[in-house]
């Protein structure tokens, strides 16, 4: 008996240690990235132009491109992603076609991002003649967003109690009226959280963008021309970390990493918290 008890104690201690270790690894990551990078963050870094060979380059155009590409990719993928999610949650019957859509979404979410990148380089850059551009990058990125958006939407719509849907139809609404006036508003907080996740993933994407958006930036800042080259912050970080010639490439990489992590953290806080408030409001109290 004592032996078993002892083993049980030991196991408990072990699992606590493992749990703490996981937190410690993350904390170390954050401290290391922010601690190294934050001192280099300055206004001139955030808005300045990158420099190829001299020290003191900034990331202004990259920062702009990051959000511009994110915005465009969401613009392309949100309607289709949310539409398919609604289709699966509301309209789909149990048949071959539905099964095919489900398998496709699963398969699409398993495609490595470099494969999306090559597909984009083939279709958008080469065949459609977009060249290396913000547009080609955003179009390819929107394909990566699609499967997650579909799943997030379907889950969000399904999490609405069935009684809402039934009550709406019983009052004589059409299905589209019920979707627009009941299902979407009441699943909005979950939906927003899901879109945040997608956005966070898209912000840090690199492998997909190297050969679609390209590795240089337009001379103008900000340049809204979607045909301009569109190096993003994450790409610039990769470039500075591995092959830049600038003497302060290390500092630029550190600062870009810190900035990227700050943006992801901020995005989570900014959207997750209002999401929770809306949820409270909608649930009545």
């Amino acid at each position, binding site marked *: 008996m004592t032996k078993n008890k002892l083993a049980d104690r030991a196991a408990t201690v072990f699992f606590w240690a493992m749990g703490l270790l996981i937190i410690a690894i993350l904390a170390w990551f954050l401290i290391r990235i922010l601690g190294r990078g934050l001192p280099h963050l300055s206004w001139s870094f955030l808005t300045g132009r990158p420099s190829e060979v001299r020290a003191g380059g900034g990331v202004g155009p990259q920062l702009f491109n990051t959000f511009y590409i994110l915005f465009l990719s969401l613009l392309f993928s949100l309607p*289709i992603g949310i539409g398919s999610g609604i289709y699966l949650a509301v309209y789909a019957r149990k048949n071959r076609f539905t099964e095919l859509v489900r398998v496709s979404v699963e398969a699409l979410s398993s495609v490595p991002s470099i494969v999306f990148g090559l597909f984009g380089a083939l279709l958008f850059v080469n065949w459609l003649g977009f060249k290396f551009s913000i547009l080609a990058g955003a179009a390819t990125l929107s394909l990566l967003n699609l499967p997650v958006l579909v799943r997030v939407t379907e889950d969000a719509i399904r999490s609405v109690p069935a009684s809402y849907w039934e009550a709406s139809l019983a009052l004589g609404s059409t299905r589209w009226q019920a979707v627009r006036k009941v299902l979407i508003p009441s699943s909005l907080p979950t939906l927003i959280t899901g879109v945040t996740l997608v956005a966070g993933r898209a912000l840090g994407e690199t492998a997909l963008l190297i050969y679609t958006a390209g590795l240089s930036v337009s001379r103008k800042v900000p340049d809204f021309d979607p045909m301009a080259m569109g190096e993003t912050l994450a790409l610039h970080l990769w470039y500075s970390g591995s092959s830049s010639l600038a003497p302060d490439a290390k500092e630029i990489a550190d600062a870009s990493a810190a900035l990227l992590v700050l943006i992801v953290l901020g995005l989570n806080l900014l959207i997750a918290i209002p999401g929770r408030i809306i949820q409270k409001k909608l649930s009545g109290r």
Partner: protein
Amino acid sequence: MAYQSLNTQTEPQTREAARWTGRQHGYDRWMRRLFAISATAVTAVIFAIVLFVGWQGAQTFKDVSFTDFFFSTEWNPSSDNPSFGAFPFLYSTVLLTLLSVVLAVPLALSGAIFMAKIAPRWMREILRPAADLFVGIPSVVYGLIGLTVLVPFLGKLFGSQGYGILPAAIILAVMILPTILSISEDALRSLPGRLEEASLALGATRWQTIWRVLLPATMPGIMTGVILGMGRAIGETMAVFMVIGNSPKIPGSLLDSTTVLTTAIVKDMGNTFYGTPWNNALYLMALVLLLLSLGLILLIRVVAKRREQA
């Protein structure tokens, strides 16, 4: 339909209402069609990817034989008599994926058990967002940590350059940890409570219950998590690129510079022109990656089906 018969009445208000209802039904039909079209579009995307990448990749076989590509270790695409043997990349990809899973699983599984069965509420509320944050950190940032911390550290420790499969596997292990952890945790939580209660009522300790009852029962769920983690490890590009060294050869040891499929594509894509055998070979590698990932998804479906039958 019922609302059309209202049209026979002459009062303008009723007619207006009937028209409104009719319009709503029209919208309903159109929206239904739109939703079905977007679902079809999503399906079309994956087929287009397989088709286009597959077609472009298959062009390789015009210049390179099947056996040369998959079994030759000679990768020398830019010489006058070019050779396109991708075996070293395949070999390193498999080795790297397996090693990173081996490194990640013990920690991830312990974390899952801790969160599902042992941790008090407040601890869970720290760990869960922490795991989400792990997922949210972009892969280049992981790569930078690997490049600036792990590679110098391993280099000093073993007296080599420090690049190779080992640092890449460690970085990947951290990256796939949250995937395996959260799926295993969900699987553990979804077990019926009676399993645990029966075991405890028979006098088993908590550890005995976890080890002999809960873990075996939740095996299919854990497998799903591990396979998804493998998929992420196979496809990861940038973090691996920064720490693996990028020599196109079979590594002599875990700390010898080598190349995997994903990094081979990134490294060479910029040097090639569309339509050349070299460029096509890169598309063929992408096709291999794609088929590997799709194969893993099929495997998950098989595991899930077995779980339903059990």
